[in-house]
């Protein structure tokens, strides 16, 4: 069962991809949905067996690398962490498959689309079930490839092309760090499988490693290098720019890959490596700070985006920041809990946005929407629930994880903890603000769209509505239902798949932080929602005045242009490398220096020498006689003084002869030239 559940999506993908021509759109949809449904069912059994019944499962199928110590097998590991991820991935993926058959029903390439989706699910399952770093890397790069293909699904659009390249490229920068981290692990631990490394981690506590000629603490360095991988995949600050651009892909893709599953791989990686990170406090504080900054940065950028999907994308980015800094505060289980919760309500939001986009003829700009709550009340309701869950409205799913994250951040009583708490609470305010802004502009404001589009807008058909309806249940209840199981005190749910050092375990401290600090995030959320609603409902005039004032314009541009990250990357760093590639390496060195020292220069040199030697061929008998006499003298002299070679050069008589010979040669040349 365990192997089947991993490989079923691959079968579905092959069937839809290679035989889509024969089985047609419906057949492809049917097969992939069937495979995914079965996988989901098996995942549920696996979850029961592994997480509830407490019997983790380890499988090894065949050897893979086998060279010196670098030897390990294709192996699968199902423990509680994997089980949680399995449920999340297969559940969302199943719903998205179902949704896509309707959403993409007019697309002639539906089989290809379903094939990519299934292939993505397969790689994601490989990622979460791997029992060593290299196999995890297979899934890691595999989902990157599928993300590339899916962003680029409508391949005639230049924006989609650019976004796809950008996503893959940014991810490769992360992969670069991840690969170096794996090398680092291999060189020090002599193994790459999880069980060995995690068991050995405490013994390397004070080891140092020389990296780039600087001595680093080993575990800190490993932690940071792995985290660079997570930064790329989970779109943390610095390598985040691909995520909003990835919204060029079809909306189901955004829901599945760029909200619920793939982007959380970084969080999964950190949680998976918790036994390693627990002994790397330096790496943990870096993670906390980067995560908190991402949460705040993305939330502030999301404030003033006009593209509906980009708002949700930045919200994803911001929520990923929460998860990452929860992990950085040693509360990996809280991070994973938020990951699962977030997957449900964010998929709901994206699929809801998909319904809107589908209904109004692929219009995503919120300024051109509005008034849709009358036309599509069901979607509005769904989006409303999703948004409230995202804001952390009390007793909805998001509340249970997000609030705990902020509480443990305060309860850490460390600089990075407080940093994360402050930025996290501010982000909660901003999150509520942009969520309500999105809802207001899309659904509540006066209709701003084209008349035809608004008139033709329709409620989602059942294959699109059903996934929303299914997703709304976990978005409301799952936090309440599973809080005690997953992050409750003394729960035995994780069974060692997540390790937290006792001194870092602070969820009890989090219970005893000041009441004000506990209530602050919720209050800020509600305040943010209210502010947003009031500003947009009553004060849109003054908002417009503020936006057009000089200061407001700067503020607006700064946030709307995403803090100018893209500008810096594209116009300074990118241009620098591209111009260096052309001007320096290609033009000046390849076509310049090497060419003139090599073929071009040599041909010039040879022809020059040949030209000057040519004049020696005078045709006069006495020139040749002179040369003969001169050679004869040198030759004889050489043999005469064979045993003392240097005399040849030091004997003054010979020098005299030599000088005379030169004199003759010179005069001859002159006469010849005239």
């Amino acid at each position, binding site marked *: 069962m365990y192997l089947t559940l991993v490989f079923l999506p691959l079968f579905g993908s092959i069937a839809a991809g290679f035989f889509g021509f024969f089985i047609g759109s419906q057949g492809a949809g049917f097969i992939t949905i069937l495979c995914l449904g079965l996988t989901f069912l098996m995942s549920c059994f696996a979850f029961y067996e592994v997480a509830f019944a407490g019997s983790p499962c380890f499988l090894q199928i065949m050897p*893979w690398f*086998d060279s010196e110590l670098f030897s390990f097998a294709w192996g699968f590991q199902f423990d509680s962490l994997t089980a949680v991820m399995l449920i999340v991935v297969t559940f969302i993926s199943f719903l998205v498959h179902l949704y896509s058959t309707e959403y993409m029903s007019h697309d002639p390439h539906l089989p290809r689309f379903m094939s990519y989706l299934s292939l993505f699910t397969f790689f994601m399952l490989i990622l979460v079930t791997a029992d060593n770093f290299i196999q995890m890397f297979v899934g890691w790069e595999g989902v990157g490839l599928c993300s590339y293909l899916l962003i680029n699904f409508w391949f005639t659009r230049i924006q989609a092309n650019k976004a796809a390249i950008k996503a893959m490229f940014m991810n490769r920068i992360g992969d670069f760090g991840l690969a170096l981290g794996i090398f680092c692990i291999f060189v020090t631990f002599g193994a790459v499988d999880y069980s060995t490394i995690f068991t050995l981690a405490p013994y390397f506590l004070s080891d140092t490693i020389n990296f780039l000629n600087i001595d680093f603490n080993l575990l800190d360095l490993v932690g940071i290098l792995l985290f660079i991988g997570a930064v790329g995949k989970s779109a943390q600050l610095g390598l985040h720019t691909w995520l909003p651009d990835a919204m060029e892909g079809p909306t189901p893709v955004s829901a599945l890959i760029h909200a619920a599953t793939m982007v959380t791989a970084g969080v999964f990686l950190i949680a998976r490596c918790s036994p390693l990170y627990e002994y790397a406090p330096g790496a943990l504080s870096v993670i906390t700070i980067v995560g908190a900054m991402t949460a705040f940065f993305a939330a502030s950028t999301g404030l003033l985006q006009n593209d509906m999907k980009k708002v949700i994308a930045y919200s994803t980015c911001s929520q990923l920041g929460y998860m990452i800094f929860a992990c950085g505060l040693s509360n990996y289980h809280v991070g994973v809990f938020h990951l699962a919760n977030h997957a449900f309500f964010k998929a709901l939001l994206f699929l809801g946005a998909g319904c809107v986009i589908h209904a109004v003829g692929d219009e995503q700009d919120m300024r051109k929407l509005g008034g849709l709550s009358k036309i599509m009340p069901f979607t509005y309701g769904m989006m409303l629930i999703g948004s409230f869950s995202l804001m952390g409205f009390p007793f909805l799913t998001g509340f249970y994880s997000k609030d705990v994250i902020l509480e443990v951040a305060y309860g850490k009583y460390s600089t990075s903890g407080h940093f994360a708490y402050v930025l996290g609470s501010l982000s909660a305010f901003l999150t509520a603000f942009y969520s309500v802004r999105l809802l207001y502009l899309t659904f509540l404001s006066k209709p701003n769209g084209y008349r035809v589009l608004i008139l033709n807008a329709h409620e989602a058909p059942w294959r699109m509505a059903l996934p929303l309806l299914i997703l709304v249940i976990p978005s409301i209840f799952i936090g309440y239902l599973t809080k005690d199981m997953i992050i409750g005190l003394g729960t035995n749910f994780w069974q060692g798949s997540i390790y937290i050092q006792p001194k870092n375990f602070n969820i009890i401290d989090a219970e005893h932080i000041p009441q004000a600090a506990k209530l602050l995030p919720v209050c800020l959320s509600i305040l943010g929602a209210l502010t947003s609603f009031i500003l947009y409902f009553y004060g849109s005039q003054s908002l417009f005045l503020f936006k057009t004032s000089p200061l407001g314009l700067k503020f607006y541009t700064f946030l709307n242009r995403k803090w100018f990250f893209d500008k810096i990357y594209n116009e300074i760093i990118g241009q620098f490398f591209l111009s260096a590639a052309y001007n320096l390496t*290609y033009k000046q060195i390849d076509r310049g220096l090497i060419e003139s020292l090599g073929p071009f220069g040599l041909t010039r040199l040879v022809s020059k020498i040949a030209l000057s030697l040519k004049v020696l061929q005078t045709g006069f008998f006495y020139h040749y006689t002179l040369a003969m006499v001169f050679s004869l003298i040198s030759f004889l002299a050489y043999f005469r003084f064979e045993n003392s070679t240097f005399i040849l050069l030091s004997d003054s008589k010979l020098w005299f002869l030599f000088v005379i010979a030169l004199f003759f040669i010179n005069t001859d040349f002159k006469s010849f030239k005239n």
Partner: protein
Amino acid sequence: MFKLFTSSNFINKILISFLVVLAYNFIISVNLILSFLILFPLFGSFVIAWLPNEQKTLMKSLALIISGITFLFSLALWVNFNKSLSKFQFIETVHYWFPWDSNSSTYVLLGVDGISLFFVILTTLLIFVCLLSSWDNIHIHLKEYLLTFLILESLLLGVFIILDLLMFYILFEATLIPMFIMILTWGSRERKIRAATMLFLYTLFGSVFMLAGIIYIYWTVGSTDYQIVVASAQFTSFEQRLLWLSFFLSFATKVPMLPVHIWLPEAHVEAPTAGSVILAGILLKLGSYGFLRFSLPLFSEANFYFTPLVYSIAVLGVIYTSLTAIRQTDFKRIIAYTSVAHMNIVMIGIYSFNLIGLGGSILQSISHGFVSSALFLIIGVVYDRFHTRLIKYYSGLVHIMPLYALIFLFFTMANIALPGTSSFVGEFLILAGSFKENTTVTFLGATGMILGGAYSLWLYNRVIYGNLKKDEGHLHLKYSYDINRREFYVFLPLIIGTILMGIYPKIFLDPLEASLLNLVFQLKN
């Protein structure tokens, strides 16, 4: 070939396969497989040379069958290879004497060990693939074309099989002649003269020093037999350094390493498709093979002395060529620069001096033989249809050639070392191995991952995605057909090889292990 096979009846097929099996048993039982591998293509070329020029299909089929049989027999090496031995296997001694002096008699040994095994198989495979790929696109001097390939195959196999320094040198240089002829005769533009001359002169320039080195070794050791030289070579460290440099000049030109790499893009651009495949697939491997076979075991101390030099040139090469590749406009030039980058990664692996790095470098060499060759073939496919290699004319090929797009995608991903493909195995082993020795080199070498992603993806997106380009309403590219069955069969063995090595590299790594262990042992003593 298809016509030949489809037109002949079933009994004939059975008969042919029966004969092949019989011959196989005979050759294995008398242990003549290596000389068979060298002589069979020569024999084939001899037969083809006598065929009349009009019988094109017959000539092509015959050449294809001959190279195919050679490939199958070379697989026998792999099957019968004893993994636990580090010494040479399938050894044959060939005596020869000079007719003018009946007293003089000397010999060469033929043998294969873990290091050369896969180079032999790669050679036979790629020649077969090349002959199949140029089935339709050679219009002039067809017979000579086939002869060139078969003779080249013999020479290349000789380089990898013959265990003699002087013979190695002779064959190493002799491979230039068919290549020179190939570029000059079947190349596309006027500039091919310059390219062929550059190829010849650059390689010759390096090799002259190697010849001097070999003669010096012969003077001191008294033999050019490889095994004797390895066993009894006692050079002072100064001698070692000079000799190492003389060999290095030759092999570094072949790999190619940084300052002497410019012959490669030039030669690739001007060569016909199959020529590029051979050039990237096998000729470059002569360099890395030379390092593994000669420089490492013969001059062990000098290797360590010169490691920083090799590392710095290789790392510079990776970054430099990757950057340069980003800004090329010619399809083939990009892949050519990519080749340089990947081969420089191989050099990093070789000079990491441990089992992982060395194993990785051989695997990466073989994998580069698959992937880079396939990419040149991919260029060949569109070149046959549209007769341009400039990227600016290409766009949106997926509209008219979806299967082609899929294969191109596969090899693009293999080129950027996506896990699950062969390049990943090679590259990862190399970098893991070199991380043990020098972290900075690994760090800089691994930037190739990022830059490789940049140019590969850009190239793929430009060519495959988007709309078909129009100019004043006219399409740049007329409607064409997707890859046909023959072309698919060209790619199939390469795809299989790439995936097989990617997900089950054990079968490739196991035969290497003993020989490489021996090599490491020789080095560190």
